[in-house]
């Protein structure tokens, strides 16, 4: 087993342990997170460090930015998600956010571990500096929107309880509607520029590789649809005063589109973005 795979597996174990701890911490009916939450955070941080090492090791072994097949992409996605969560956690200190994000990261990694991990030659036409720039921007955007999705789900749960006046233990742990809405807005205002730049850098890269900026392949189309969705939400927020429930629902729909753009297109439809295209045929 090569080093990067070994690291990947240990990272997955650390993430899983952290997930379990986060969930244990969150089911207690307490306003604040306890020791378990703190331990979970440290383990997650350890996992993240190791994940960084995993990516570096993979980069060294493969000789290209390791986002060229399903295994690598999912791992990279999980990495950005955990990284973005840790950033948000510094600001909001929300164990409950961890209890929602970590399981997602674990699922991404689990699926990633079933995909083939073999390293193949990179298609020379695609091998340029635009590749790492494009995928990093795109995945950072994805991760931020994932957090927005999580905040959206939490918002809907909390709002449901406040409206119906029936409170479960989660009510005490979930942050206030205001904070959740604030996360929605922050994610949107960080994620949207990232996504925009991701699309632009992709176009530039496409131009250098194939001599055309935009080809309307399914991935590009779906990315554009997703982009318009988020643009609509941002616009609604800034001008019409969309917020709360509606913003939360939009963030959830946006995320589903994103997921389809990222996975659905690659797995269901074949196009230039498919992983096969990434590698030399």
């Amino acid at each position, binding site marked *: 087993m090569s080093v990067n795979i070994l690291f990947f597996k240990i990272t997955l174990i650390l993430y899983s342990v952290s997930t379990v701890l986060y969930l244990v911490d969150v089911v207690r009916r307490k306003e604040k997170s306890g020791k378990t939450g703190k331990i979970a955070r440290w383990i997650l941080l350890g996992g993240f460090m190791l994940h960084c090492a995993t990516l570096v090791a993979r980069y060294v072994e493969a000789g290209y930015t390791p986002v060229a097949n399903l295994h690598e992409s999912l791992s990279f996605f999980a990495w950005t998600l955990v990284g973005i969560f840790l950033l948000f956690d510094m600001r909001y200190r929300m164990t409950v956010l961890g209890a929602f994000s970590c399981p997602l990261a674990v699922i991404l990694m689990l699926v990633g571990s079933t995909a083939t991990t073999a390293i193949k030659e990179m298609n020379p036409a695609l091998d340029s500096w635009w590749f790492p720039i494009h995928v990093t921007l795109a995945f950072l955007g994805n991760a931020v929107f994932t957090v927005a999705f999580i905040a959206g789900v939490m918002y809907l749960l*909390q709002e449901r309880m*406040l409206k119906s006046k029936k409170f479960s233990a989660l009510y005490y742990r979930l*942050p*206030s*509607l205001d904070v959740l809405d604030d996360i929605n807005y922050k994610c949107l205002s960080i994620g949207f520029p990232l996504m925009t730049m991701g699309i632009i850098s992709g176009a530039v890269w496409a131009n250098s590789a194939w001599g055309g900026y935009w080809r309307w392949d399914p991935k590009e189309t779906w990315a554009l649809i997703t982009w318009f969705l988020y643009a609509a939400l941002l616009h609604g927020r800034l001008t019409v005063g969309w917020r*709360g429930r509606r913003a939360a629902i939009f963030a959830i729909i946006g995320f589903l589109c994103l997921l389809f753009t990222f996975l659905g297109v690659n797995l269901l439809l074949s196009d230039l973005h498919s992983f096969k295209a990434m590698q030399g045929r």
Partner: protein
Amino acid sequence: MNIIVVGLSHKTAPVEIRERLAFAPTAMEKPLHELLALPTVTEGVIVSTCNRVELYACSRDTDACIGQLKRFLASFHNIPLEQLESHLYDYQGEDAIRHVFRVSSSLDSMVIGEPQILGQIKTAYGYATEFKTVGLILNRFLHKAFSVAKRVRTETDIASNAVSVSFAAVELARKIFGSLEDKKVLLIGAGEMCELAARHFLNNGASSVTVTNRTFERAVKLAEEFQGQAVPFDEFPQRLHQIDIVLTSTGAPNFILGHEKMEEVIRKRKNKPMFLIDIAVPRDIDPRVNKIDNIYLYDVDDLQGVVQANLKERHKEAKKAEVIIDQEIGQFFRWLGCLDVVPTIVSLRKKLEEIRQGELQKTFANLKNLDPKERQAIEALTSAIINKVLHQPTTVLKQAQNDSAGSDYVDAVRTLFALEPPPSDDN
């Protein structure tokens, strides 16, 4: 030495009795000194709150002491004991310890988990130390009770979540708005509950309270109290969109805020959330308003429901607290048991005897040529030394056993000779 509790509380006595038994906080010296003067009492504390009057005492003669404490309560307040007897409870030993731990942890309070009682016991203990009616045991005991109460508070959720309607409203507001800072409150109509809630909102950071009332003068008067603004009753709807939290309790027979009006208001607010609290019966706000996005409407029953749920949660937490108390009782009771004179003397002797035997064996191992007679002489010599050394301390301990200093000596002896691992309970 035994710990004894005699007293009554809201659970055993109506307020008519409790108020007659109360001790004035300004005049605690006399009762405390009289309490200590009782022949069987070596240490004493008097706890007197509106919900309970209790005497904590230390005594060697438990049964006599309980009788004396009861008579003291009756005679001090000039009430015939027969009238009191049925309301009084008494505890001793482990039960007394459990009772005081439970009281200080607020498990015996009218509203479980309310923190005042701990402060009241601390005050009572303060008087007792001021007038020097507590010694080693009650000192240790009450400090232990305080630390148990603290443990219960930090390790269980007994005191979290509001158990009054007005606090429940504040907590809900926090879940909606996060911080209450720069939130504006509107008070429609007057009513004790509303005013209390408005005050809680102010204390928790709300920026202003605006008051409106059908009688404008009353609004002005109330607004002054909150240093807020008064608005004529027919003008408040125009200002509604600037308000985050609305408290209503008018006597109006119909809804004063309807569905359409509130939809318009929330549009004007660009969907910024609003929290409406309707305490009026009949209700002031159309319940359908709760269906509007970003408006949260709670009527008095909803708030009561929250309070009931929180209370239920407290009772659940109280069970965890009982477990903590059980652990702590055992520890303290062991320490208390060590304070008896006779077992102390026995273990002191045992300890010295062990030392003597150990040293003898070493000596005999080196002096192998001793004949039995010489060996006997050495044995006799060493035992005589120990007996002589122990004579005076034993006499003092036995004499001290009957006054309050006894426990101090016992404690000192146990510490000096390291007779048993000292109970580590002062944390």
